[in-house]
């Protein structure tokens, strides 16, 4: 069940509103000045977390050097997006050849728009869209989370997103930030009962990731929850809000539908993005789940060493993959059902997409990166007030775990970033 929204006022300010007789004084009128100060403070926190996260990325990835052009050729997916941004889609019909048609249009379209408006280079525009989306997503997520959770949980969630081992993908020119912004806006509209706006956001997001349309579960669950509270299960469909939402729900497929229409018209193959995706799929690799079932990890555990973690940070990704559902189940009662449900659906699909080789596990990490209920679950887990222990004791334990966890994540993030940077910019990751 969802936690009730916590009062954002500190205990000191609450105490100040009590008079000597113990009666609660009426709240002071909110002035424009005070409102502006609160807004600025609320913006400052996600901005500070964004800057900290970006600074970490920059230190780890030598980002500033890259921006000057030393290795500005880009790598992996960014190369494909830049190609689409400049020259559009190209497809020769060979489904086993890696081609740009496998990538979705939302991100390169936004890049092309920024390139035109701000007169930036193709690379600069893509990086600009990616990083601005990350910042916007952090701000929106901050306000979404603050409606339900305390400031420490909100800040911790964003921090965990920003310093996680795969947070590099929030800054390196990939499309994840745009998708993350889509998720954040979907939740933003859903928690404000703006169902049509939420569905339209999902429709646009589905032009960035084909499974973006799965986000439709979020407003649907939230709307059903609201209708249940207002009308009860028996009269659920008396809710006009739910009726309207059900009528417009297919709009959440708008982006992917328009893209398939375009592909059908242009290349006579509306599912070309899926067909050519086979060029990225290795037939002989197996999924993480399959490796678990067949005890293949026992062999890896026998060879476990700290050096192994450093040289193969994909193990970290696999560990995160395994811990995610456990952490989520532990926090289930404190998470909003819609978020949990979405997460479970996504993780159910993701294991089908991901294999055991380093590249695929990197993909797993970056796909997980944008599913924010996981860091939210972690943040709740380490929130001192959620612990059923004596107050002083749980504060100390929680503070210790919290500190260890953040340090571990920062180290892990740095190691992973170094590793992937090496792959990206050493040339082995260049698109052939």
């Amino acid at each position: 069940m969802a936690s009730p929204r916590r009062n954002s006022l500190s205990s000191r300010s609450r105490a100040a509103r009590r008079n000597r007789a113990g009666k609660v004084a009426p709240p002071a009128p909110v002035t424009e000045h005070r409102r502006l100060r609160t807004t600025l403070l609320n913006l400052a926190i996600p901005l500070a977390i964004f800057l900290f996260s970006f600074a970490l990325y920059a230190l780890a990835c030598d980002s500033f050097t890259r921006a000057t052009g030393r290795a500005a050729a880009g790598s992996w997916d960014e190369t494909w997006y830049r190609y689409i941004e400049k020259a559009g889609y190209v497809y020769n019909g060979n489904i086993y050849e890696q081609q740009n048609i496998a990538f979705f249009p939302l991100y390169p379209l936004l890049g092309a728009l920024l390139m035109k408006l701000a007169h930036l280079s193709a690379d600069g525009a893509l990086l600009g869209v990616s990083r601005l989306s990350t910042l916007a997503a952090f701000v929106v997520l901050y306000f979404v989370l603050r409606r339900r959770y305390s400031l420490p949980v909100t800040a911790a969630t964003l921090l965990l997103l920003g310093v996680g081992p795969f947070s590099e993908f929030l800054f390196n020119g990939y499309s994840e930030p745009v998708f993350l912004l889509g998720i954040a806006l979907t939740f933003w509209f859903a928690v404000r009962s703006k169902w049509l706006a939420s569905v339209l956001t999902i429709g646009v997001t589905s032009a960035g990731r084909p499974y973006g349309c799965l986000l439709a579960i979020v407003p649907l669950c939230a709307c059903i929850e609201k209708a249940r509270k207002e009308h009860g299960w028996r009269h659920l469909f008396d809710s006009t809000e739910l009726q309207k939402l059900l009528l417009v729900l297919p709009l959440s497929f708008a982006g992917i539908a328009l893209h398939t229409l375009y592909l059908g018209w242009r290349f006579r193959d509306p599912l070309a993005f899926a067909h050519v995706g086979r060029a990225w799929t290795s037939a002989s690799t197996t999924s993480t789940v399959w490796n678990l079932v067949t005890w293949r990890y026992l062999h890896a555990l026998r060879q476990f060493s700290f050096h192994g973690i450093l040289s193969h940070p994909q193990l970290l990704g696999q560990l995160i993959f395994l811990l995610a559902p456990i952490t989520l189940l532990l926090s289930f009662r404190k998470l909003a059902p819609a978020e949990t449900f979405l997460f479970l659906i996504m993780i159910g699909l993701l294991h089908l997409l991901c294999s055991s080789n380093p590249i695929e596990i990197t993909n797993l990490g970056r796909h997980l990166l944008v599913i924010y209920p996981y860091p939210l679950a972690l943040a709740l887990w380490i929130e001192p007030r959620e612990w059923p222990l004596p107050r002083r004791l749980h504060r100390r334990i929680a503070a210790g775990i919290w500190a260890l966890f953040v340090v571990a994540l920062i180290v892990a993030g740095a190691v992973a970033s170094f590793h992937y940077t090496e792959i990206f910019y050493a040339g082995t990751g260049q698109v052939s």
Partner: protein
Amino acid sequence: MTSPAITPPARRLGLRWWIAGVSVWALFLVWMIWILIEAHGYDPFDPRFIDNAPLYRIGQTANYRGQQAFFLGWSSPEAGFRWSEGHKDEIAFRLANDADTGRPLLLSLHFVMTAGRQPIRITVNGVFLKKTDAVGAGPVTAIAPAGLFQPGRINAVTLELASAKMPNSQDTRLLAVALDTFSIKPTTP
């Protein structure tokens, strides 16, 4: 579940909402059916894709990169070669309408290395041609009878590689042969 204290009265949606909603659902269902038909009937050798398929001319020596053929099931190109991946791989290409296939043709596959001794079963357009072993660098050849390759269509050379294996614990691909070139030439000038 406790019933709410106050239940708002049921309201009906306006006609405009119903028209918009039914239209959205109708469009969605039409799109979904179209996509399901496309997904179900997909065939990489569909005549619609023939124009897009790479053209191979008899007598050419084609490389591993894929300009003259589809490499179905093969690994991505590496520096100078392309590994087969898994136990069954295909090389598919379109022959020109005027290709002379009315006489025996020599199919030659040149490997730069193999993962140990590799038994290979070669078929062309589903017709068994030859079973042989490949070891290390060198060509593997087979003679295709007249009429087996078909002009104006996509032709497929299939390699069945029963002994494909993982080279080490880091590389989880099932590898057998690393191809650099292939060719189809007349057996007689």
